[in-house]
């Protein structure tokens, strides 16, 4: 495994300037630095307004930082022209939160899975690749002929994951991929992700507000609060010995199964 980090986020600040005369500026992220090593599963946790989504957009080079830089395998990706990013787009894929809105309901599953292959000019036998992808997310090959709307939420998220796997990415960025799913299905999708990360040796950035899910899936974690990086470290350390008050507060607020009702934290 190479020593070059998959992602290097260096002193990144992102300010959104609102249009109009008053032109208020909103600082979505301030002076964020961290790295993601190859093969790592990094959890990005924080509440709404913490800058999680801005951060994933920066990692995907969909936004450029106001200052600072984002490097992918040593190369700056922010501010590059789209045609220079073709390899990057192949290597870094995303799974969105809501499979009901991230998949075009009027497209057949075959086309949903083949579209990124065509767009990125990946020369493969489409039919065969689609079958492979469906198999990797434990869906029958016959699903290719059907439309996304004919599937349940969990099955659609499988299709969305298969679509992301199409270009054989090195990195999967997952933005709250299980929070719109039913409890019983959530576990299936988490198991699927665990298996895929292992089998395809994926590096994963998992954005979530659910601390329990992050603890299950990620070996390291970044805690964001109002655009600032509050704490980062190995998941075990951060969860067992949080150094910052905000991290402690987040952990204490997470619901815990109890045999007797009570809202005060047990520890």
């Amino acid at each position, binding site marked *: 495994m190479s020593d070059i980090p998959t992602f290097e986020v260096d002193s990144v600040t992102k300010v959104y300037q609102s249009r109009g005369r008053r032109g208020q500026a909103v600082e979505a992220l301030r002076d964020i630095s961290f790295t993601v090593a190859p093969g790592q599963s990094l959890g990005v946790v924080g509440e709404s307004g913490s800058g999680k989504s801005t951060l994933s957009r920066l990692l995907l080079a969909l936004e450029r930082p106001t200052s600072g830089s984002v490097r992918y395998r040593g190369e700056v990706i922010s501010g590059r022209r789209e045609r220079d990013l073709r390899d990057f787009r192949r290597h870094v894929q995303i799974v969105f939160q809501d499979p009901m809105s991230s998949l075009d309901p009027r497209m057949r599953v075959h086309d949903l899975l083949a579209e990124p292959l065509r767009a990125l000019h990946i020369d493969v036998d489409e039919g065969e690749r689609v079958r492979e992808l469906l198999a990797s997310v434990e869906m029958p090959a016959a699903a290719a002929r059907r439309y996304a709307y004919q599937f349940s939420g969990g099955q659609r998220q499988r299709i969305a994951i298969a679509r992301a796997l199409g270009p054989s990415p090195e990195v999967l960025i997952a933005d709250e991929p299980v929070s719109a799913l039913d409890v019983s299905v959530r576990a299936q999708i988490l198991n699927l992700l665990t298996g895929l990360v292992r089998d395809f040796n994926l590096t994963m950035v998992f954005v979530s507000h659910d601390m329990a899910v992050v603890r299950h899936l990620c070996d390291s974690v970044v805690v964001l609060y109002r655009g600032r990086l509050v704490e980062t470290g190995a998941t075990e350390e951060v969860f067992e010995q949080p150094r910052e008050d905000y991290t402690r507060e987040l952990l204490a607020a997470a619901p815990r199964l109890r045999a007797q*009702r009570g809202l005060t934290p047990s520890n």
Partner: protein
Amino acid sequence: MTALLSVRGLSVSSGPLELVRDVSFDVDAGERVGLIGESGSGKSLTALAVMGLLGEGLRASGSVRLGDEELLEASELRRCQLRGDAIAMVFQEPMSALNPTRRVGDQVGETLRIHRHLSRKAAERAAVDLLSRVEFAEPERYARMYPHELSGGQRQRAMIASAIACDPGVILADEPTTALDVTVQRRVLELLDRLVDEEGCALLLIAHDLAVVSEVCDRVITMYGGRLVESGSVSQIINEPHHPYTQALLATSKALSVSESSLGSQLPSIPGTVPSAGHFPRGCPFQDRCDRRVEACQVMPEVVETDNRALACWNPVVGTSASGGGEAA
């Protein structure tokens, strides 16, 4: 003594399709009952049927009693009198439940103008008091704002303020914290919990998260496929679930805990997905996904009540071996 809210044999149907079937439960004054189940289990429809807010084409049958009054036979006028006054509901999506074109204070006070015939001025003052009761730091200022100017948690608290305006005996809360951040979720749950303590009202809390229910509620009802499949006290359900569906939900909930590492392990999961309405198997709705299925499951088992708990299963989970209790309380 009769329970404050008593539901007996409640069914909700859309034409020939029965979406909720033969559901019975009680909620007493001062009691918090959790209703868990996944989408399609019929838990929201049950609450809407109790409120008399079922959409067009849906029909409720059976019995819903509020104190001595049968709600399913009450006129729409009478139901309007009760709704917001004796029985109130908190919805999941405060952004769509609140009117975007009216100030928060107006909407919170509206309940009092309708039910208590307060003047506009008096309702305004009452609304400010209510907003401060749900922990708004500057209630006067927030009362003048529009819903879009509030955060999700503030909107949810404003909706709770409007629900408690007339001191209802029964509060139905349908996933009131699902759309909220964890720290905000906790505050809203604490607020609901405190209101039950202070007002002695009955709370029916609908949630999909068993952990949330176990923190707030005294009793738990599990629904699946429009049926009540199990109910019991929180400790009975958490320590010794009898229905395979409850047990499976519990196993997942336990494995995915903030306070224990399970990095990279296989989570217990339920095979398959929740079928859409009308596609549940005949007999027990859970049989296709159940690992304890037997021949008898093709007929829906009766709900049997023993020892303050209820169960509808032909081949229940017995013994405590399958579970080891929740985290220490």
